[in-house]
């Protein structure tokens, strides 16, 4: 391995240089808001002349910002739960069932990921205006559940395809019903994927700005809508403080999800050797 790396190493310094430059281009603008948020003056400075946390204090003292944050967290939690509850049975139908019109159903579930978000947003805005769902919790939750569905579905489908169906078969031959085989064998094995998928769905909902922008009302807006308005109106350093909180929060959640997944992979799994050997044989 090390040898193969070295043999091409001599000719790759331009690639390495390009990689370093591109990574700086990726990271720097993303993280610049963090030092800026700790400035003390009304306009943004880098590096700040004086470090302070006034903008964080201002955020936590502002009722409108707090309401937006609470709404976003509620929407992200509920939409993640809703999407998971419908995605699990759907995944089972796809990978353990015989489904008529599988291709159409799959395209429909993945469509929110591919179709332009502006079109989805405007379509929902017009429909939800008629149904009086603009600026309401059910409206936000339904919209975000649909937008996070493709991620959950793909994560779960990938995870279930790695499970060996013979485990459920074994449970069934020992007298378990189909439901109890699912409940006691399949579901526990899927738990890490479900937890990971839910963490990512939560962040996707929290960060979603296009649809939220259209579905918010002046009385009830998500954090992203509130940020969008503040940025458009007057770039106050509170937005930098909120951005920092969101970046740190999202990354902690992603790290936690990855950790859960790693731990689950390392933990000994029942009958792990036999299915693994069989998959390898199939691949060969």
């Amino acid at each position, binding site marked *: *391995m090390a040898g193969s790396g070295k043999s*091409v190493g001599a*000719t*790759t310094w331009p*690639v*390495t240089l*390009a*990689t370093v430059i*591109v*990574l700086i*281009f*990726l990271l720097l*603008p*993303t993280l610049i*808001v963090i030092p800026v948020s700790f400035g003390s003056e009304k306009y*943004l*400075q*880098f590096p700040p002349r004086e470090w302070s946390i006034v903008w964080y204090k201002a955020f936590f003292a502002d009722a409108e910002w707090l309401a937006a944050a609470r709404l976003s967290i509620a929407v992200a939690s509920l939409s993640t739960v*809703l999407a998971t509850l*419908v995605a699990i*049975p759907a995944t089972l*139908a796809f*990978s*353990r*069932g*015989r489904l*008529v019109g*599988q291709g159409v159903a799959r395209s*429909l579930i993945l469509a*929110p*990921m591919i*179709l*332009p978000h*502006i*079109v*989805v*947003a*405007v*379509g*929902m805005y*017009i429909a939800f205006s008629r149904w009086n769902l603009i600026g309401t919790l059910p409206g936000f939750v*339904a*919209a975000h559940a*649909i937008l996070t*569905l493709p991620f959950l579905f*793909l994560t779960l489908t990938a995870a279930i*395809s790695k499970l060996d*169906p013979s485990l459920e078969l074994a449970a069934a031959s020992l007298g378990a019903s189909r439901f109890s*085989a699912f409940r006691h064998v399949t579901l526990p094995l899927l738990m890490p994927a479900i937890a990971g998928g839910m963490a990512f769905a939560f962040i996707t909902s*929290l*960060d979603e*700005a296009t649809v939220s922008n*259209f579905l918010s009302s002046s009385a009830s807006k998500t954090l*992203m809508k509130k940020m969008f308005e503040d*940025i*458009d109106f007057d*770039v106050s350093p509170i937005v930098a403080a909120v951005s920092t909180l*969101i*970046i740190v929060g999202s*990354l902690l959640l992603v790290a936690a999800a990855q950790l859960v997944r790693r731990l689950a992979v390392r933990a000994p799994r029942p009958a792990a050797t036999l299915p693994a050997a069989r998959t390898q044989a199939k691949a060969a």
Partner: protein
Amino acid sequence: MAAATANAAANPRGFGPRASLVLILPVMLLLAVFFVLPLTGLLDQSFRSPDLGIANYVRALGSDLYMKILLRTVWLSVIVTALTLVLGYPVALTMSRVSGRMQLAIAVCVLIPLWTSVLVRSYAWIVLLQRRGIVNEFLLQTGLIDQPLRLLYREGTVIVAMTHVLLPFMILSIYSVLRSIPKDLSMAASNLGAGGFSTFRHVIWPLSLPGVYSGVLMVFIIALGFYITPALLGGPETLMMSTLIGQQTTETLDWGLAGALSVVLLGLTLLLVGLFGRALRLEGKGI
């Protein structure tokens, strides 16, 4: 898909057609009411608001202004896609060549932006580029300029920021293919006397094409309908389809025209997916 069918076939105790239908019913109901109905409503608006007919489409496709905006949208998307490919490929290549800690470090650098809100990242560009922003302050202090430059609300700004936002998708698409190319192949090529570049050109590049196609299609499609970044960083001269549709919906309240423009954008996207959709590898995106 193939794996799913194989699983079902290998598992005689799997769910039958009726049970499968019950299992998929909740998700289909949710999508039918809150996704399909709103989209068909948009189609309905485009033909009926304010009068029955194709007047909105005549307006959308017959106007020089809207045609210019459509062409600009396609053009900007092409540039952004090309930029992400040129900038993303070396990163994906390096990521597939190194291992252990280095690989993790690069992955973290790519994933942090991916999991940071698009809005936050667009805002970061405002912090950098506004009149009293970091770039202008720096240039003023070093004496390179004596008047702040107008860096925001320009086409170039939108291109740079969109490239920044979409770059991780391209990198991960290409990387997912590159990492599956056996290392022995480039070793064999160099054993046979091929130089580094020749190995790349004749072995690695052709094998990585599925990842390139997938990344190009993904980035281009997202770019076509991208709203947040052009809305925040663009000005009146950089109006794109997405910002135009948004304007018609909430400012002009011309839902018929917004519907027709949406259908045009949707049609363009579906056409691309229909023609090249096989190249799209959605599995494991961003995770």
